[in-house]
């Protein structure tokens, strides 16, 4: 009993000392920061808050705000898969043969009505639930590109051109399936770093507790990378005026590559990119198609999200290959259909 008491006293002392150190250090730091900010802040703020900076902040917060509901939807679905759907469901639904599973998973992308922020966490939880990475990756690429919301938006943006919608569907699905097959054939497990469950989730692998813990962790993790991507997107949005594009409209090859590059840096949400593509007057239909096929599959925001979820080694290899495949497939489909 006495030992116990002494321990409590020592613990209490240790806690008190620690609290005091924190308070002193924190207080000093706060006072220092407050002084500097209150003196320099207004001066610097007025000089730095130019229209360009204001526009940067607006675009930055806009991309982040716009991503929050979709990211949350994605993490809810992914946490629900992790917590409530047993593994055998997927092994039963998907054929054993990867070459067959890939197109099925790609076509299943139709069911997730979100933009690209939602699909990364879902694909990652599918992999953790034992779905073959090739199939999960095909789903990751196709879901934001071919879901009904996006296709309807495309048909509104291109009135009287149903071929544009069809072209988008075919080219996106083809890219997703080809990427899945490429991964099945050439992909290496060690490129892919799957985050394991956090401690809290591991101790109770299923049920409501795991759902909440998974949701909190996934949202915060992906949210951080969303902010990173939003910052990159805003920077390009401000740094690259779209009027520069007119220089390149002359050559159809250059313009296709240029729009495919623009899709990467502008990070327009897949539900809105059709309207942006439609407004890029002077570009060939094939170039606009490339913009809409690349956009939902490869952009800065997505690369950041993938790097966070699957690791950097994966994100850069995967994104650059996807870009090439997407450009090729939209060139072929554009040449055939449009």
């Amino acid at each position, binding site marked *: 009993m006495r030992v116990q008491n002494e321990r409590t006293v020592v613990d209490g002392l240790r806690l008190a000392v620690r609290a005091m150190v924190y308070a002193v250090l924190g207080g000093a730091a706060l006072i220092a920061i407050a002084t500097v900010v209150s003196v320099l802040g207004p001066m610097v703020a007025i000089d730095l808050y130019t229209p360009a900076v204001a526009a940067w902040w607006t675009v930055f917060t806009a991309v982040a705000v716009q991503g929050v509901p979709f990211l949350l939807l994605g993490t809810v679905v992914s946490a629900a898969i992790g917590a409530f759907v047993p593994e055998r469901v997927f092994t039963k639904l998907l054929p054993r043969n990867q070459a067959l599973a890939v197109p099925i998973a790609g076509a299943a992308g139709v069911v997730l009505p979100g933009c690209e922020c939602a699909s990364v966490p879902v694909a990652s939880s599918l992999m953790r639930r034992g779905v073959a990475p090739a199939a999960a990756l095909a789903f990751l690429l196709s879901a934001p590109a071919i879901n009904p919301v996006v296709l309807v938006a495309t048909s509104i943006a291109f009135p009287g051109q149903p071929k544009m919608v069809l072209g988008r569907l075919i080219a996106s699905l083809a890219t997703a399936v080809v990427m899945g097959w490429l991964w099945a054939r050439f992909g290496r497990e060690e490129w892919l770093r799957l985050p394991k469950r956090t401690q809290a989730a591991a101790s109770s692998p299923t049920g409501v507790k795991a759902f909440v813990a998974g949701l909190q962790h996934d949202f915060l993790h992906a949210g*951080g990378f969303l902010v990173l991507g939003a910052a990159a997107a805003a920077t390009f949005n401000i740094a690259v005026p779209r009027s520069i594009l007119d220089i390149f409209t002359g050559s159809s090859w250059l313009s296709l590559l240029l729009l495919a590059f623009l899709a990467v840096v502008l990070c327009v949400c897949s539900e809105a990119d059709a309207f942006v593509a439609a407004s890029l007057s002077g570009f060939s239909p094939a170039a606009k198609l490339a913009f809409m096929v690349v956009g939902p599959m490869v952009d800065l925001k997505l690369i950041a999200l993938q790097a966070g979820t699957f690791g950097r080694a994966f994100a850069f290899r995967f994104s650059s290959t996807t870009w090439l495949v997407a450009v090729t497939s939209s060139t072929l489909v554009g040449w055939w259909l449009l």
Partner: protein
Amino acid sequence: MRRYGSAVLLLLVGGAVLRISLFSELYLRYVQAALRPYLIVSGALLILLGLAAAVRGMRHRQHEEHDDHEEEEGEEGEGDEHGHSHSHSHAHGGPRIAWLLTLPALALLLFPPPALGSYSASREEAQRAAQGVGSFSALPAGSPLDISVAQYSSRAIYDTGHSLKGRTLRMTGFVTHGSNGTWYVTRLLVTCCAADATISKVEIRGDEADGAPQTDSWVTVTGTWVPKGKLGTDGAWPPVLKAAQVKQVKEPADPYDKR
């Protein structure tokens, strides 16, 4: 902070989202109007998750004070991420990268960034509506008739039915200036979020247009259509409105045109 990190972050982000969507109409500066219910639901859900994390943190704290397990707790989290330098995940503090979320969250809570204005308009080539020449559906009755800048613009340039002819029209937008004294009523159009803004503008002429208002101030202009150039060609652009009345107004709640 490690114990309550997740809770703080979730509450901060949830609070920021609710502040711009539920407690004000600031969200219209960043995203389209239809996103509001989703923002409110997300904000509420994030607050709930934050509260759950706070409760768990408190329970764990009591737990730890009995067991003195604190040190081990931190290490367990680190192993999860295989040494990826940016995202050590702590069981309770949340992944480190998540602290980036404080940037937009605090910006929204403390100094909500303004809506895009003349700066962005000057950088983007004004877009001509994508459709070809054709006849448009009839305009509704009313004099003056309220019309969006984008709608006026596409009817002025592409409508073979000349639906604007003889009508008194009223439109609201912010002011931008061109070379040698011309000025425009300009409005940005946002489809999903401010990152995809496209611009439309109408040149204002007439006696009332003398003494152009300041750049970025908001005006409501009433006037009539001035035909110019051949339909569907560069000559028809930008469209012109002969102003009968120019009135300074406050920035509307929704600073962007709807599609």
